[in-house]
Structure formats: structure tokens, C-alpha cells
């Protein structure tokens, strides 16, 4: 119920999130595609980074939100939290898909293949399949309460994959870039770093914006269903 009020409160500032996202992404894209220099080794191809890295980071963040939301749901059983989880999963899938797609496109010129079974790519593909499974599972249940619970269970089990995605580049020797921003310092040129940071901020703002809109949509859908349901229950046999 606290969340209800919080969401309503946030809802009033929804536009700000959307606007901020548009602004950051706009400027970020402009800097990334126009003003930033091509890479020494990779040339112009490196510009895919400004989409790939932010969407990959946001997708991991989104799954974290889904995980916390799922635990919260099992604890409080508040339908609004369930709507939020449902919305998060859909958006997370969108980001995961974008990261996969851009990563694949990037991989063709740099690694000369669309796909390899590198640990990070493998674990990220698992994340993708888990999210698809999550959304599929939700369509196969009629009872809302049951649907919410089972979905939450799946999200929690699937969370095991997240640390693997994140740390795989540390744990195994991999093809994929290791973390560039870690305790060991930053390994980006500043003129590349600025658009990257802008795009990352924009991407997470966009995530928040979509999350709010989608949660409200699902909430309204639920209300509508309830209303239609009442009409149906009033028809006489």
C-alpha cells in the first residue's frame, strides 16, 4: 500500500523521467555518433558501444529490480508489486534483446562471428531465455494470484544467473571485454566516456519511465478486467 502511494506520487513526475531520458539519449547519441573519435583498433564500428553497453547494463539492473520485486511480492502479496514485476520483465527483455542484437552485430566485424560460446554470452543468453520463459509462464495461468507467485518463484531462481553474467569476465578468460570501470580504474578515453555515461543515464531513465507507464497500464488493465468480470457475474444463468 505504501508502494501504491509512492507510485502515484512518482506518477506525477513521470514526464520528467521521459523528458530526461529523451534529452540524455539525444545528446549522447549525437556525441557518440558525431563528435566522438573512431577507435584506434576498431574504427567506426566502435560506435555500437554507445547502444550496446548502456542497454546491457540496464538489462542487468532491470533483472535486479525484478528479483527484488519478486521477493517483495512473496512477502507482501501486493498486486501492484506484481504488476511492477510483470512490467519489469517485459522491459528487461527489451533491453536484453537490444544488447544481444547490438552485441551480435558488433561481434561480426570484431570476432568474425555472430555468436560464440563465451561464458558471458552464454550466461546472457540464459538470462534471455529465462525472461522469455517468465513471460510465457505468465500467459499460461488464469488465477492472478497463482500467476504472480509462480512468476516470482521463477524470477528468484533465475537470479542465480545474474552474478555469472556480471563476473564471468573476471572468473574466466574470455573473448568479451572485461569490466572497464572497476576498482582497477577506468580504461576509456574521456571523449568516449562522456557519451557513454550520458547514454547510460538516459537508458536507465528510459527504463524508469517505461516501468512507470507499463505498471500503470497493467494496473488499469486489471481494474478493467475486474469491471468486465463484475458485469459477467451479474448475468443470470
Amino acid at each position: 500500500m505504501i508502494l501504491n502511494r509512492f507510485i502515484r506520487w512518482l506518477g506525477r513526475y513521470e514526464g520528467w523521467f521521459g523528458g530526461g531520458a529523451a534529452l540524455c539519449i539525444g545528446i549522447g547519441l549525437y556525441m557518440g555518433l558525431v563528435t566522438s573519435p573512431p577507435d584506434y583498433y576498431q574504427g567506426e564500428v566502435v560506435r555500437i558501444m554507445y547502444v550496446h553497453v548502456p542497454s546491457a547494463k540496464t538489462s542487468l539492473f532491470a533483472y535486479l529490480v525484478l528479483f527484488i520485486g519478486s521477493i517483495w511480492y512473496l512477502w507482501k502479496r501486493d498486486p501492484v508489486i506484481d504488476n511492477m514485476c510483470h512490467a519489469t520483465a517485459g522491459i528487461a527483455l527489451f533491453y536484453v534483446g537490444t544488447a544481444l542484437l547490438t552485441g551480435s552485430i558488433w561481434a561480426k566485424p570484431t570476432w568474425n562471428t555472430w555468436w560464440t560460446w563465451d561464458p558471458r554470452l552464454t550466461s546472457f543468453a540464459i538470462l534471455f531465455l529465462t525472461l522469455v520463459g517468465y513471460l510465457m509462464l505468465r500467459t499460461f495461468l488464469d488465477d492472478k494470484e497463482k500467476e504472480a507467485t509462480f512468476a516470482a518463484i521463477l524470477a528468484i531462481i533465475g537470479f542465480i544467473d545474474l552474478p555469472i553474467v556480471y563476473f564471468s569476465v573476471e572468473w574466466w578468460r574470455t573473448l568479451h571485454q572485461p569490466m572497464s570501470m572497476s576498482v582497477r580504474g577506468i580504461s576509456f578515453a574521456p571523449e568516449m566516456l562522456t557519451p557513454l555515461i550520458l547514454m547510460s543515464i538516459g537508458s536507465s531513465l528510459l527504463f524508469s519511465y517505461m516501468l512507470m507507464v507499463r505498471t500503470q497500464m497493467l494496473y488499469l488493465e486489471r481494474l478493467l478486467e475486474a469491471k468486465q468480470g463484475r458485469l459477467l457475474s451479474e448475468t443470470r444463468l
Partner: protein
Amino acid sequence: MVAIRGIALSKSFHYHQVLNEISLEVKEGECYALFGPNGAGKTTLLRIFATLHRPSSGRFEILGRDGLGDRAKIREDLFLIGHGSYLYDDLSVVENIQFALGVRGGHPTDHEIKLALDRVGIGAFRKLKSRHLSAGMKKRLSIAKTLLIRPKILLLDEAYASLDERGVVMLNDCIREFAKEGSAILMTTHDRSRTAEVAHRAGVIQQSVLQEITIQEMLAADALF
């Protein structure tokens, strides 16, 4: 003391609101009969009390304990005889009973099991695999379990369905005995005269509204429900 208390219970299944703010009280030692047309939501209500569904809104109490928070405790006192027979096809009648009780922490002796089976009239089929039982025999087996568990709350869906007449008499006997021992019984049925023999109170669910009536009214009513 109130054994079952439902407060403004609602339940919807995807587009279909089945129950709308239903409230209901059943006291200990009382047998409450639910009537209502097909699809009114009787089964759904029973399943909510049996902790099989969660209500979409509203809450309920069983023997004073909260039905949503304290489910583990509640379940000790509950038993539902519903559409499912809860049997394993490859186990015999006796093994099925042993399992059903054992798994919930009971330890009936062989003699107790034999008595219960004889009472419900399937003592002769003790060794038969439950795969080969007919609908009515399965129902009787469920009643035998109830006799061994002696739950404080007994929920009976379509109480008399698929029982023959001897079976109905036997079940009504059991219900009376349970009520005398202080159990609360909530049952759904379409059969007014058989219900009237044991029910203390009755209610009709219609268009998601529960309306209480007395047994006399129920028997006398011209209207069908």
C-alpha cells in the same frame, strides 16, 4: 465460538469476478449449507476457506486465526472433500489412507482404519488398488479419511454427489456426529431435502451475493435455486 468467518471475500479469475464481497460465519458445532445456481461460486468459496485459492480481496478467519497469514496452523484443523479424490492409483485403499494420514502426521492403527472403512461401507475393498474404484467408492474413501482425522472444520463440496442412497444416510450420520463433537461443517449441495436432515443454517449465493435463509424457508421456498 465462530469457527469460519469470511469477511468481504472477493475472487476473480481473469475477466470473471466470481465472488463479490461475500461475508459468512459458521459457528462450532454447526452445519451450514450453501445453495446456488451453477457457476455461482460455491466451489470457489469453499476452496478459499480450504486455503487453495487466495481471495482477490477481503480476508477470513478459521477458529480465530487469520486465513492469509497463519495458513500452516489453520490447515491442521481443516479437511476438504471436493472434486479431487487425492488417491494414488497404484496404492491400495488401505495404503492410500495410511499415506494420507501419515503425511500429515497422523498414526492410525490398522484397527482404526478397518473400523472407518467398514463404517463407510468399503471394508471389503481394502486391498483393491484405488485405480479400480468407482466414483461413489472414492467419495466414501474420502469420508473414511475424515472419520480418522476428525477435523474441526469440514468442507464438503457437492456433498451428496455420486453417493447412492445408503451412502447419503451414512454421510448424514457422520455429519451429525461431527457437529455434535463441535466441528463446523460447511457444505455445498443442490439437494434440499437431504440437506435439511442435517443442516442448521443455509445460504444462497446468487449473482455474487450471499443471502441467508432458515431451513424451513429453504424447504418451503417455491423459487428454485
